[in-house]
């Protein structure tokens, strides 16, 4: 009875998902398993073999994974202290910074990328200021991996701070104070109390960050370099510029598989915690 109710409640969003994502995705997968025109006897995985056999595409896949991991790590390392700060410091400056760090959330991604370019580009604001200060050699900050990472970090900080902060908010001050009373230092308190108690939001944050950055198109398209490129850009190029729809769909499936692995890790870890809990 409760099972039926549960399923009934889940059904409406599930229908949207099935018709607008899953069925179209299945038809895309079928295309990738159909051999390219002219090669009738090819194996069903021929398209995958071809994509993975192209050196530049392998490079793009690895590049995408690395950029994503670096960006996620940076967002995490910046956001966690920030969330702690906003949680435990109650000054006017903290309140003000709390608003400042939410700003990127409200800036559409196209505009964020455009703003980042004008800010960081050679002869843009940062480099002009440095030039005036006598710095002649200016490191390249946009149109490469650095640019992608910086922009991804810029747009992702509010998301991470909010989810982590919401979790931290739930931790009782008394718990932390009692840890201090038994002589635990800040690091110890963080590792032994805060991190485990905030595990679910942390996992949600990491998973969603990974998937969002891994699949991003606008930022790498605008702020990235010519090569290697992130998969979102490469598959668009194969579709729109190189007249190769099948390869593009194949890359989409590969990207989906990689992203799914992260999703499965998340669900597995949440399930384990659930089972461990009484």
């Amino acid at each position, binding site marked *: 009875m409760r099972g039926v109710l*549960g399923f009934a409640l889940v059904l409406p*969003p599930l229908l949207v998902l099935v*018709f607008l994502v899953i069925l179209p995705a299945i038809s895309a997968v079928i295309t990738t398993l159909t051999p390219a025109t002219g090669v009738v006897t090819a194996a069903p995985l021929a398209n995958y073999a071809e994509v993975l056999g192209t050196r530049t595409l392998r490079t793009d896949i690895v590049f995408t994974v690395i950029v994503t991991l670096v960006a996620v790590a940076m967002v995490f390392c910046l956001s966690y202290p920030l969330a702690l700060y906003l949680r435990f410091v*109650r000054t006017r400056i903290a309140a003000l910074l709390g608003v400042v760090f939410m700003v990127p959330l409200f800036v559409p991604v196209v505009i964020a990328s455009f703003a980042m370019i*004008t*800010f960081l580009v050679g002869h843009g604001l940062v480099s002009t200021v440095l030039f005036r200060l006598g710095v002649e050699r200016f490191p390249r900050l946009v149109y490469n991996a650095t640019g992608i990472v910086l922009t991804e970090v810029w747009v992702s900080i509010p998301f991470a701070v909010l989810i982590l902060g919401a979790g931290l908010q739930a931790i009782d001050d008394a718990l*932390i104070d009692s840890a201090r009373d038994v002589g635990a230092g800040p690091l110890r308190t963080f590792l032994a109390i805060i991190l485990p108690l905030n595990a679910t939001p942390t996992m949600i944050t990491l998973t969603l960050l990974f998937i969002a950055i891994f699949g991003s198109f606008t930022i790498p398209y605008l702020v990235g370099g010519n090569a290697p490129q992130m998969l979102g850009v490469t598959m668009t190029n194969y579709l729109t510029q190189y007249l190769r729809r099948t390869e593009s769909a194949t890359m989409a499936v590969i990207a989906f598989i990689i992203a799914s692995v992260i999703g499965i890790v998340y*669900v597995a870890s949440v399930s384990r915690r659930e089972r461990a809990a009484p």
Partner: protein
Amino acid sequence: MQAAWFLAVGGLRRALGIGALLALAGFILGPLATLLVWAFAGAWLFPHLVPEFSLKWWVYVLGNADVGKAIRMSVLSAPTATLLSALICIPAAYAFARLEFPGRRLLLLSFLSANAFPKIGLYVSIATLFYRLNLMDTFAGVVLIQLVNTLLFMIWIPTGTFRGININLEEAARDVGAGPLRTFFQITLPIAMPGLIVAALFAFIAAFDEAQGSLIVGTPNHITMPVLMYALVLSYPQPVGAVFSVLLSLPSVILLLVTQRYLRAGYLAAGYSL
């Protein structure tokens, strides 16, 4: 207030901490400030630090009637998509958190595909379906395509939130005779509200930012802001792009001002209380 324990170690460390925070704030605000300056620049050629001031690009941009229309379309469609999403997803999230049914975990995971499968490969199929249902170039079609982007946020975050709520609270309410609906609306929902608001905010942003799908479904008469933005911000000379950016950020800035109090630490409270 003992809470500032981790910073209270010494003046120097504190100063370092504040310095780092301010640097980070500069990193956040710098690009936007540059954009604002560009929007009022007649021309800004290297190595001048300050551009010639000019309003000529504003006159140029404000003559473009499409901008107002697109902003109106976005301001109407994104909240509709968010509300609709909340309406169908929050009960589902509650079911995922509290009810046992076969395939629960797999179904929860399947929502990941809404964000994890690159949409570029899906649009022809989606558009074909929309043509059959006569949803092309309609407001409903645009809302539906935006709705897809909100699903993950509206399912996963509320599921986490509901799961974090102490079940004893609900059971206590049931023990004193409250029905399941009453328990949900009077006990569960208020406690979950902060988490739900955050989810709704992310859903809104995701709906608001959707460009590629809206382009296919919405043209020619239901063009949203991001669709226009791609064409305008990127293909005009830099100052015009900046003016468009400033204009197109206005709805978001208003949203920031409106929601700002929900984003304050204090309000976010017990989304994940254990």
